[in-house]
């Protein structure tokens, strides 16, 4: 919308010629200037500049809908990818939502990639088995994708489908794995993907992991406006998710907290000393990629370990309160030990714990 050409907006010809003569080509150029600057630049009376701005704004403004028509539009397409983990699907009102970014964050080795492998498989299954009957693009930045493991998950979760001939290669054939080696590689492949997504009936996009792409760069802002290296990829991923109405799942790493982390607003000063020690002694991990990333994702699933068990915690979701489910990783992928889940409140929602788990279990 911001790149709409002024020449095509139906302004009076004299005005559009003047815009072109001053190199104001797109709506973005015109609307970034204050009215008086525009008037001086174009050498037209203020009233003309104002009405031109009003006309350009009206055209550059995206169309509106009522929330009701939004709901009716979206009602047809399902809206969720069921994970086949009943408790989690209930908590997320159906599963991983379409048209939004879902983040999986947790310490290494906890099972995020296993979860992604299972999701990829589920998306390729025909609708009668609860899948999306589509292709999957799996962006693997750490070379963790294992087709052998995925087939194993498939054979153990859906034996009746996978035993029949030809179906396993067909399902596996629908998963496209990309291995970008740098952030610029990644952004290039994203751009190329835009058109092919719809053409090839891609129903799920997985990025495993996002944090690896910036691990070499300092992801904390150097003060000032906070130029996040991933910012353009982030907004691109979001728009990709929304316009193609597909789920986009992104995994994130954890890192240790430094003393410089901010938890409190300035008006909370007096409470800081009391709570600080008790809350933070257990958890020394936080999600990588910073707070701007945390704002941008719609659903955040935290994988953590404590009290000898692993948990999937719905830490951020517009549709459900925070709730944690114990899980294990077995041959058929991830399974929940209990569908009931445990309520989580307060700062626990955002902490990530990684202790007391036996890595060599099973």
């Amino acid at each position, binding site marked *: 919308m911001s790149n709409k050409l002024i020449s095509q907006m139906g302004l009076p010809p004299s005005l559009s010629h003047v815009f072109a003569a001053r190199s104001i080509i797109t709506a973005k150029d015109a609307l970034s200037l204050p009215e008086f600057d525009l008037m001086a630049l174009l050498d037209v009376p203020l009233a003309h500049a104002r009405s031109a701005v009003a006309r*350009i704004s009206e055209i550059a403004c995206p169309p509106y809908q009522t*929330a009701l028509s939004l709901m009716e539009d979206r009602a047809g397409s399902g809206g969720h990818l069921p994970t086949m983990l009943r408790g989690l699907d209930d908590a997320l009102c159906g599963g991983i939502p379409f048209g939004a970014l879902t983040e999986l964050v947790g310490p290494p080795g906890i099972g995020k990639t296993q979860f992604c492998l299972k999701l990829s498989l589920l998306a390729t299954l025909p609708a009668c088995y609860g899948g999306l009957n589509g292709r999957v693009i799996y962006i693997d930045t750490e070379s963790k994708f294992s087709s052998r493991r995925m087939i194993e998950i498939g054979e153990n979760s859906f034996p009746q489908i996978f035993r029949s001939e030809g179906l396993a290669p067909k399902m596996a054939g629908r998963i496209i794995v990309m291995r970008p080696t740098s952030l610029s590689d990644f952004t290039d492949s994203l751009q190329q993907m835009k058109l092919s997504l719809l053409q090839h009936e891609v129903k799920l996009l997985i990025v495993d992991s996002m944090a690896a792409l910036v691990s070499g760069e300092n992801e904390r802002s150097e003060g000032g406006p906070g130029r996040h290296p991933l910012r353009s990829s982030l907004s691109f991923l979001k728009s990709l998710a929304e316009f193609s109405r597909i789920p986009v799942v992104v995994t994130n790493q954890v890192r240790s907290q430094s003393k410089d982390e901010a938890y409190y607003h300035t008006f909370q000063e007096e409470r800081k000393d009391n709570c600080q020690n008790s809350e933070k002694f257990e958890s020394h991990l936080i999600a990588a990629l910073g707070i701007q990333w945390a704002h941008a994702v*719609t659903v955040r699933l935290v994988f953590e370990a404590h009290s000898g068990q692993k948990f999937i915690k719905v830490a951020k979701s517009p549709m459900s*309160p925070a709730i944690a489910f114990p899980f294990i990783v077995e041959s058929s992928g991830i399974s929940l030990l209990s569908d009931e889940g445990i309520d989580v409140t307060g700062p626990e929602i955002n902490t990530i714990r990684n202790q007391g788990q036996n890595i060599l279990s099973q």
Partner: protein
Amino acid sequence: MEIANLPISASQRSKLLSAGYATLSSLSSLSPSHLARDLNIELQEALEILKVVSDAADRSKSTDGHHQALKGVQTAWDMLSEEQMQQHITTGCEDLDHILRGGIHCGEVTEVGGVPGIGKTQLGIQLAVNVQIPVEYGGHGGQAVYIDTEGSFMVERAHQIAEGCINGILDNFTDHDRKILACQEWMQPNSFLSNIFYFRICSYTEQIAVTNYLEKFLKEHKDDFDDLACRTRILSGMSLKLMKLAKTNNLAVVLLNQVTTKYTEGSFHLTLALGDSWSHSCTNRIILYWNANERYAYIDKSPSLPSASAPYSVTSKGIRNSTSHCKRVRMM
């Protein structure tokens, strides 16, 4: 006021100056045809210039301090009666409404900020629903414009919150069955949803366009910034327009903001995004934060309310008072 400060185009100004008209007084009693001949311009253009001149002259006229000659000015006494009649939109949480003396103020811009997951979008959706509460039940019977820049507006959640709000109203009137039945056609969640006008914007150009377009919309019925000065200028331009929209249309404008970290007083603190200059632009500011296991709202900036905190909770029905025991509320 000098010719140099008039809002006219550069070529018109240079023509005036070269013809010898340097001050307003020299133009005050001139006829349009005389001016057109002097400047060698069209009669229409001369008329426009003289109109601008007479507007400027009206504004700068000093008439013995009599306030009615100054356009748009009110005495503090007039404003008091206006302030007392000020309308509020309830937030759904009584404690929060209490510290806000009724709710979010109409006619003003309020900024709400907080960490991810604290409930900013929930509050936004709740307000978009609550403004529609019919006048008979203490609301405004109004409509809402929701400008979404994050893509976090979930229609199903808006439906849930609308249902929760409607059921809350009906609960209070169990003995008015007939009245409830009569209302039922238009007290449906779907009709609430049809009164929320949703704009999804993806760039700051679109945000500027929307803010400019809103004026027209209301009559009928938000890239990467390399230039910080440009960003500040655009933000302050937007905030001025929003304040004007709020005032002229008696709208409550609510802006939801994210947090970032800032180094002050020797350590890092959470602070609202967009910087110090933006923080001056909004009339009111509410910060949502975690305190132990509860969600709290803190009035950080307000011209008329003292700083105070109130707890609130996010339930399946929407924003409500906080429960003293953490009861499990399922979102189904």
